[in-house]
């Protein structure tokens, strides 16, 4: 398969997923989009394996590897720091000075909001990865030009 054909298939899958997302919202059936998303990603990986005019060599692997490692290094610290705070709030760890018995300090963030923020952090990881990928691609000469 040619690289452009792969991009075309990728676009079609993305569009289909968008449609299914809307459809599952209409039906109030989250399972539909969840299964469709997994199947979509599997299809993308299978299609990518058949691309013949694009080579993934050791430099590409190194760029991906470095970007992934750096993303994880930043992400787990931020995610854990936030989650520890959230867990403390859920478990109602006593504050200083101690509150009188039976009075609970006001919640800064509700459990639902904590979930949203964690979801937001997960989404931010994608942007972080893209940023690191661009940085390492530049470092390993991806955007170099030559006289040839």
């Amino acid at each position, binding site marked *: 398969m040619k690289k452009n054909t792969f991009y075309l298939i990728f676009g079609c899958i993305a569009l289909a997923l968008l449609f299914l997302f809307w459809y599952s919202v209409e039906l109030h059936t989250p399972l539909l989009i969840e299964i469709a998303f997994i199947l979509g990603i599997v299809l993308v990986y299978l299609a990518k394996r058949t691309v013949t005019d694009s080579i993934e*060599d*050791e430099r590409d692997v190194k760029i991906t590897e470095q970007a992934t490692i750096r993303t994880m290094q930043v992400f787990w610290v931020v995610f854990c720091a936030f989650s520890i705070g959230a867990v403390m709030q859920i478990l109602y760890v006593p504050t200083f000075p101690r509150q009188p018995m039976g009075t609970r300090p006001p919640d800064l963030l509700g459990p639902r909001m904590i979930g949203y923020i964690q979801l937001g952090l997960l989404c931010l990881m994608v942007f972080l990865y893209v940023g690191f990928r661009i940085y390492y691609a530049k470092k*390993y*000469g991806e955007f*170099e030009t030559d006289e040839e």
Partner: protein
Amino acid sequence: MKNKIKIFRAMHDLTQEQLAQAIGVNRQTILAIEKEKYIPSLDLAFKISRYFGVNIEEVFISDEKTPTIKDT
């Protein structure tokens, strides 16, 4: 790590694309190695030097002074 890939390419009248295809990497990888932006693995360095029919030391020159067994 310095290298003479550009010189060897010129000697054999090869483009980056032709060399890249011959050893199974992207043209951008050859360019990155030539510009010393990327140090190839030992495996790739051997592939390149074998393709030109020379020893690895003739294509790749290490500018790092490392101690030898005679120094110890």
